[in-house]
């Protein structure tokens, strides 16, 4: 059995309790509401720059055409311009679709023995859960901008309108909040229930999912059930973004600080974990390099500088001696 998810679950529960007790019973609202969010943003920015600059230092390798389409060849062989691009425009198209529609996840397949034959089956679930999860996350984050911007800009209100289109209950249900939770739970179940995936999963695979489930659960609790004073929340967050710091009069509920602390942990965790794929996807060599090795010469960037001494130069240097020794020379 893989107990890694229990370690991750324990970590998330302990972190939640720390904030619940720290900001609630111990009353350290300034620490959890002001100090830790700033610290988290600073660590996030510094860690993010460090990781990306570390990648940026590596020389660009040879083209890696691990693609799933016909490369450019003779005129009468049709090239697959998106899967195996040979131009900048094609690469931009491939990158855009990869980032926006997760095409490489869509190609996910499973190997199975059917009778005595091996077979590869197309499996859509990973792609489906991932796209549900990521777009919900995006919508939730954009909607959260209402806490950080004053006046609230048009695009945030537009997303709220679309997201609340079901008009179920009051406060109206936001679809993305529910689908975010569903997406994260489905991705987690996939790692727990599928034996092969379970076998290769580590605590670091479960932790971010559980943390995000924690964030979504506390958020949903606050919005629909235990309630939080949203006007006061915005007072606090506007204070943070305009550097007029202060905890609003009367303070906020402990659950809010659990939500906020989870978010702080998440953004601190990003630069040091697999979540850096948010930057890494832009730098994947199998996606962002055109397959033009047959048209352009790519010199290996870490080749040492070699001083050449050609035969012509050699002969120039030793011609007299060669003639003396009776060796044939090309130029007299």
């Amino acid at each position, binding site marked *: 059995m893989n107990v890694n998810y229990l370690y991750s679950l324990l970590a998330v529960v302990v972190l939640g309790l720390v904030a619940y007790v720290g900001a609630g019973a111990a009353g350290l609202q300034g620490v959890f509401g002001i100090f830790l969010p700033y610290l988290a943003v600073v660590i996030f920015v510094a860690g993010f720059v460090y990781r990306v600059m570390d990648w940026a*230092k590596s020389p660009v390798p040879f083209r890696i055409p691990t693609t799933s389409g016909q490369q450019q060849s003779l005129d009468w062989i049709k090239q697959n311009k998106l899967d195996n691009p040979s131009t900048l425009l094609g690469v931009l198209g491939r990158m855009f679709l990869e980032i926006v529609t997760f095409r490489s996840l869509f190609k996910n397949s499973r190997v199975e023995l059917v009778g005595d034959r091996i077979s590869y089956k197309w499996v859509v679930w990973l792609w489906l859960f991932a796209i549900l999860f990521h777009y919900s996350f995006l919508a939730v984050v954009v909607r959260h*901008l*209402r806490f950080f911007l004053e006046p*609230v*800009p048009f695009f945030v209100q537009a997303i709220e309108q679309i997201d609340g289109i079901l008009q179920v209950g009051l406060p109206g249900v936001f679809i993305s909040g529910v689908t975010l939770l569903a997406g994260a739970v489905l991705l987690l179940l996939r790692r727990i229930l599928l034996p092969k995936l379970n076998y290769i999963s580590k605590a670091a695979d479960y932790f971010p999912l559980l943390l995000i489930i924690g964030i979504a659960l506390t958020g949903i609790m606050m919005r629909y059930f235990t*309630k*939080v004073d949203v006007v006061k929340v915005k007072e606090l967050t*506007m204070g943070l973004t305009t550097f007029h710091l202060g905890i*609003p009069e009367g303070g906020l509920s402990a659950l809010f600080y659990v939500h906020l602390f989870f978010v702080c942990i998440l953004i601190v965790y990003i630069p040091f974990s697999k979540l850096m794929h948010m930057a890494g996807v832009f730098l994947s060599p199998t996606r962002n390099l055109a397959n033009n090795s047959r048209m352009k010469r790519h010199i290996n960037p870490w080749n040492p500088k070699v001083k050449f001494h050609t035969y012509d130069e050699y002969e120039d240097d030793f011609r007299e001696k060669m003639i003396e020794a009776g060796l044939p020379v090309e130029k007299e």
Partner: protein
Amino acid sequence: MSDKPKIIIGLVVFFALFTFPFWYNHGKATSAPEPLLSAKAKEAKQCVRDVEYMRTEHMQLLDGWRDRTVRDAQRVYEINGKEYVASLSNTCMECHDNKADFCDRCHEYTSVNPYCWDCHTYPEEKK
């Protein structure tokens, strides 16, 4: 060859987006909205339920009123020995007859846009 320049441009764009709230607000202090009690509300002194509850849960209260009225034809809401007609326009907006200075002040600040007014009315604002 190295892609450093392109990567640095990407980083700069990312951080411009990430820090959007900081430069969008450019450090202006904002103050929380102060809902203005109308003369009628002042006279009544207290709301349907205590003010803490009203501040965070008035939508749930309204939701209960709506469901009870529309589904069970139950138009009276009793609390603390008082009776209220469970009505958005005739009860809430009767006391809070200044929607723009009361409800809207909070709602604009927190970007909530209740769709109730597509059908329900509220008292005309005196300018």
